[in-house]
């Protein structure tokens, strides 16, 4: 009998995971590098040198204030990752907790939690962000909170649906027959068995968070100047779209490639982490 290939070996041969993983790695790498080095400072204004097309001195050209576009775009990656990680983290922890409680308690607790998530889900992230910035003023925290809140019902639903399926399995009945309480069963049996579904969902929500962050910043509700952000770069580019199309091109491409990369990786993870598919491969 030959050994089945390891997860790493299968991952490298999975086309969408390999491409998505490479793009995601690139995003993280760019954000990491921009912490210590960018070609020029993303904050340095050089009005006489504004709206330069791409050239060896400014690879992606300069914007209306003469800032180096590649430097701003690199620093903007940090912002996207920061918002994505925290917003998904908030949604994942609170949503998973709610979904797990709903699946463990059933009955009216489940109804209450799920109707609450329906209610939250009905609010678009944009609307929450507008309300929050009306109350607290716009800023990166507002976009993180708004996207985080929007993520809670998504994770709550995924968790409840997968957890209900695990609760129906015999080994959970066996664990209950062995005298385990609901909390122990949730922690030891349910959560480990839904980890793959949550991982996939988290990857995809991360991509969505980047998209929403860009949308909120574009609307002026998220990251505030001079903090670099892809969404704001797009907003700035709007007025000069015919004189300086590169201003929209590069942040747009950055958003597209990041979101594409994360989505492909999520898709790939779904295949790789599914034990049934794994065995057939």
């Amino acid at each position, binding site marked *: 009998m030959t050994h089945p290939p390891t997860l790493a070996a299968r991952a490298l041969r999975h086309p969408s995971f390999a491409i998505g993983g490479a793009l995601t790695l690139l995003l993280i790498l760019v954000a990491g590098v921009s912490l210590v080095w960018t070609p020029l400072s993303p904050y340095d204004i050089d009005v006489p040198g504004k709206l330069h097309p791409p050239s060896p001195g400014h690879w992606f050209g300069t914007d209306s204030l003469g800032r180096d576009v590649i430097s701003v775009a690199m620093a903007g990656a940090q912002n996207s990752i920061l918002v994505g990680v925290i917003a998904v983290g908030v949604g994942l922890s609170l949503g998973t907790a709610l979904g797990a409680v709903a699946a463990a308690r059933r009955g009216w607790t489940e109804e209450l939690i799920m109707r609450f998530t329906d209610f939250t889900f009905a609010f678009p992230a944009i609307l929450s962000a507008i309300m929050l910035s009306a109350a607290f003023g716009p800023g990166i925290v507002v976009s993180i909170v708004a996207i985080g809140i929007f993520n809670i019902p998504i994770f709550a639903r995924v968790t409840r649906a997968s957890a209900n399926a695990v609760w129906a399995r*015999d080994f959970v009945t*066996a664990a*209950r027959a*062995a*005298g385990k309480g609901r909390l122990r069963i949730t922690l030891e049996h349910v959560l*480990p068995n839904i980890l793959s579904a949550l991982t996939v969902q988290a990857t995809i929500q991360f991509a969505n968070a980047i998209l929403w962050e860009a949308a909120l910043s574009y609307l002026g509700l998220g990251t505030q100047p001079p903090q670099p952000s892809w969404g704001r770069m797009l907003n700035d580019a709007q007025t000069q779209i015919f004189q300086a199309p590169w201003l929209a091109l590069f942040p747009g491409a950055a958003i597209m490639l990041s979101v594409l990369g994360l989505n492909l990786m999520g898709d790939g993870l779904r295949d790789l982490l599914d034990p049934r598919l794994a065995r057939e491969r």
Partner: protein
Amino acid sequence: MALLEVENLTVRLRTARGPAEAVRDVSFALERGGTLGLVGESGSGKSMTALALIGLLPDGAEPSGKIRLAGQELLGLAESELCQIRGNRIAMVFQEPVTALNPLHSVGRQVAEPLILHGGMDHAAARAEAVRLLDRVRMPDAAQRAEAYPHQLSGGQRQRVTIAMALACKPDILIADEPTTALDVTIQRRILDLIAELVAEDSMALILISHDLGVIAENVERMLVMYGGSVVEGGPTEEVFGRPAHPYTRALLAARPALHLARGVRLKTIPGSVPELADLPPGCPFGDRCTLVIPACAAARPREERVGADHYARCIRLDAAAVAR
């Protein structure tokens, strides 16, 4: 006082077609070291009876009656109190060893868990005891296999693991719900022998649930035949097999294949099918399939009639049934 006394146990379910009684008025007693078999078709209420005993009925099921374990009433106990009893005093072995084990934990860990939970052992001691238990259920290379994950074991080995889990805390009662149905025929015998041996060694009481008459005949002292949620006949196994009284039991025994039958001879079958629980007739549940049925059968549920020492059947046509033999 018997170890386990069940009196008039009834389980009401809410189904899409209205309320249904999955278990009707079941009573029995089990002594320490005793063995009891529940036999019946799918949907006869035998598994539901077992789940009621261990307090794991599905959501929305309402049990009533009495279940006393060494004098303590189990129905109506709080979940936290039931957790103290489950796995510790009443343990259960399930039908599907494939799905009854968590695929993500090593089998050693799964056997050790009840010991930590109820026995208060620390991890190292529980692990050592788990290996000893696996050895006791004749797991080859127990120490090594304790590190294995369920998918690395065969069906028979997995069932040995679930038995080891059930026995970990030396329960008073072991409930085995179709423990060999999912296994190869060659393994069935060995697993049943193992259960019988372990139960005798620790003088546990055993409740064996099966649809297989052969399994029941060989493994238990007393048996209850269930149909439509009711016990239609109960008594010592030898008695019930030797002198079946209820028409259903008799039909069931007649439907068994036998080696001496000539080629081409069709096996006897029971015409009709098991009634839906939601629309059980008010009278005898077997009424519409019984060859001896008379109008009085549909009037009221038959009472228990004595047919021998400790042997009874719920039928008003026992005289006719005896003649029909």
